């Protein structure tokens, strides 16, 4: 056997096999089918149960699709992918425990992120300690990436940029808009969204007349909204989660607060936003990581956002539309696939290096990490719920499905 042949054998089969053994993905019973198992702690119950479901379904959908296409090729061998997840009950301290369990007991090869910034920030140090790379898709707070972790990467646009699109949308329609009120939930991600929005609004010449945080468990924000109303802001921005956004729209109507535009970081893109609020959801703007209307041409099984959405809905008939959490979660799998194939090994540190040097275009948008592990290349889009019952991408204008409606017309008389 030639030296080249030996080397090929060594790198092609022996090393991956050893690496696979080392991380324990080889099931002792049968070596017939080789698997790469991804582990994730996902909130399928608790406060973010819905978003957790989207996350899980996105991971699973991408894994199934890649498996259908033959799996991931590592050094000449095809590996099937699998997902192992536990419910973290929307409690960050559970996320950390479960991540440790996945690495230690279940011996998963790689970690996928949980839903939300707070749980992601508890999973990250665990991955760091065990030197297992994590690509996360649902933790946008930049604070996760300020601690110098080397094994955590995020495919999504960071929190501080979430509401920029809505500010730009307003200014594109109305140079005369002057004042903004910002309400944020008091937790790491939303705080950054609110702070980032305030910074950007000021940079664009708007004046931030009100900026406050409310507690995560708030069931009543009428006091804040009463104060907001007394400032008569042109724009009201909310940085919280679905439940908060619903509450703000409801109570704003109760109190007769009707700004020219109302936008949220999280909420309007979920189907439940319309289901819960019915007509009161009209004209509300939502920031979104991704919509099927965007025009990306990616290097992945679906290539375009539209094709991804169609394929997902065909497989998951219980969804009426594709939440962006599904897309970003699927994008994490795509990023792992590219990195593993590029690394040509399952060695966690080598895969980590391959992730760090990724520079790819996907159906979800560009993925390229900065030194912290944040994907800074992808912009946010803006959606608007319009009175015909539909939800349309209205910004950036280059990819808009429709013109946005601005300002919101006065509330219909009761």
């Amino acid at each position, binding site marked *: 056997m030639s030296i080249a042949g030996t080397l090929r054998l060594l790198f092609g089969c022996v090393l991956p096999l050893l690496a696979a053994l080392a991380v324990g993905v080889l099931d002792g019973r049968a070596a017939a089918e080789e698997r790469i198992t991804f582990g994730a702690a996902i909130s*399928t*119950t*608790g*406060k973010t*149960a*819905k978003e*957790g*479901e989207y996350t899980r379904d996105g991971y699973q959908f991408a894994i199934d699709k890649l498996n259908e296409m033959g799996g991931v090729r590592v050094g000449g061998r095809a590996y099937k992918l699998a997902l192992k997840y536990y419910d973290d009950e*929307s409690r960050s301290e559970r996320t950390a425990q479960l991540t440790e369990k996945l690495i230690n007991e279940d011996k998963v090869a790689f970690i996928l992120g949980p839903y939300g910034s707070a749980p992601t920030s508890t999973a990250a140090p665990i991955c760091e300690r065990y030197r297992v790379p994590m690509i996360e898709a649902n933790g946008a707070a930049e604070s996760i990436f300020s601690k110098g972790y080397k094994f955590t990467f995020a495919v999504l646009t960071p929190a501080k940029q979430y509401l920029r699109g809505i500010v730009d949308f307003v200014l594109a329609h109305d140079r005369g808009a002057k004042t903004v009120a910002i309400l944020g939930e*008091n937790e790491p991600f939303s705080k950054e969204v609110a702070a980032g929005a305030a910074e950007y609004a000021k940079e664009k010449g708007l004046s931030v007349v009100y900026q*406050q*945080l*409310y*507690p995560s*468990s*708030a*069931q*009543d*924000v*009428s*006091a*804040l909204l*009463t*104060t907001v*109303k*007394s400032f008569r802001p042109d724009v009201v921005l909310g940085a919280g989660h*679905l*439940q908060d956004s*619903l*509450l703000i729209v*409801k109570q704003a*109507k*109760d*109190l*007769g607060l009707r700004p020219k535009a109302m936008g949220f970081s999280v909420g309007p893109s979920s189907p*439940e936003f319309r289901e*819960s*609020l*019915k007509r*009161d959801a009209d004209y509300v703007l939502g920031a979104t990581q991704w919509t099927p209307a965007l025009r990306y041409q990616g290097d992945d099984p679906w290539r375009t956002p539209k094709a991804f959405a169609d394929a997902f809905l065909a497989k998951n008939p219980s969804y009426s539309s594709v939440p962006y959490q599904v897309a970003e979660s699927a994008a994490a799998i795509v990023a792992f696939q590219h990195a593993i194939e590029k690394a040509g090994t399952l060695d966690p540190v080598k895969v980590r290096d391959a992730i760090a040097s990724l520079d790819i275009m996907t159906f979800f948008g560009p993925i390229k990490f900065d030194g912290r592990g944040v994907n800074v290349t992808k912009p946010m889009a803006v959606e608007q719920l319009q009175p015909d019952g539909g939800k349309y991408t209205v910004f950036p204008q280059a990819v808009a499905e429709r013109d946005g409606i601005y300002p919101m017309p006065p*509330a219909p008389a*009761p």
Partner: protein
Amino acid sequence: MNVAELSQIAVNALLLSGILALVALGFSLVWGIMNIVNLAHGAFIVLGAYLTFYLHEAAGIDPFLSIPICMVVMFALGFAVQRALINQVIRAPILATFLLTFGLEILLVNLVNYFCKGDTRSVTTAYTGAGITLGYVRIPYIRLAALLIALALVAALAWFLRSTRAGRAIRATGMDIDAARLTGVNVPAVYALTYGIGAALAGAAGSLLSVMVPFDPNLGGAYTERSFVISVLGGLGAIGNVVLGALLYAFVDVFVGARLPQLSEAVTFVVLVLALVY
């Protein structure tokens, strides 16, 4: 803070206190009479909210009309739970009832989670968000109605406890269980009745909350906490006290919330601590 804002905030607090009083009413009754800190109270509220939601979605029943239905269903459930479960441990140390109701809470919340999914729900009617404007102040109809219904239920319960035979038996049992038994009160039945009424009131609170706030199966825990604080602030002596407790809670929560929302919860609990100390 100008006059318009101040008066609106005061009205908000007043309106909020109504629903909070109703939230705490059943909890306070059960605690005062049976000395059970009913940690499953929030779960009953959630059940009431879901029942209202489904009656509205599936049968088109107005959420306000479904209040009596919820109360009857929840009464039956509460009665059965007390008879079958809690009566078994009623003489055991307080920790046993704590654990039992806590377990019940987890069980109910997870059953709701399983059968109704974790989706955030909200009951939206034609009149959601409608209201009247009086000078500076805007009063949403739904919150006004909730306040009136809450006050009516407090009054009805107070009347029931004072003026009916069953009500007097409940109070007698609360005062001295042995004396009540000696005079012929059927204590297990009275306990079941009391717990059933507590659950029915939680169901009514859930009905009203379902039109006011978006909810999911985990809504309850926060309301159990609030019920606890309000019951303590008001005192357990008389049932009308929950109105005072709720007023105090609502005013602190809303006024602090208007300027320092991050601190609103901390401050309400500081008030609780002060109330306990002094």
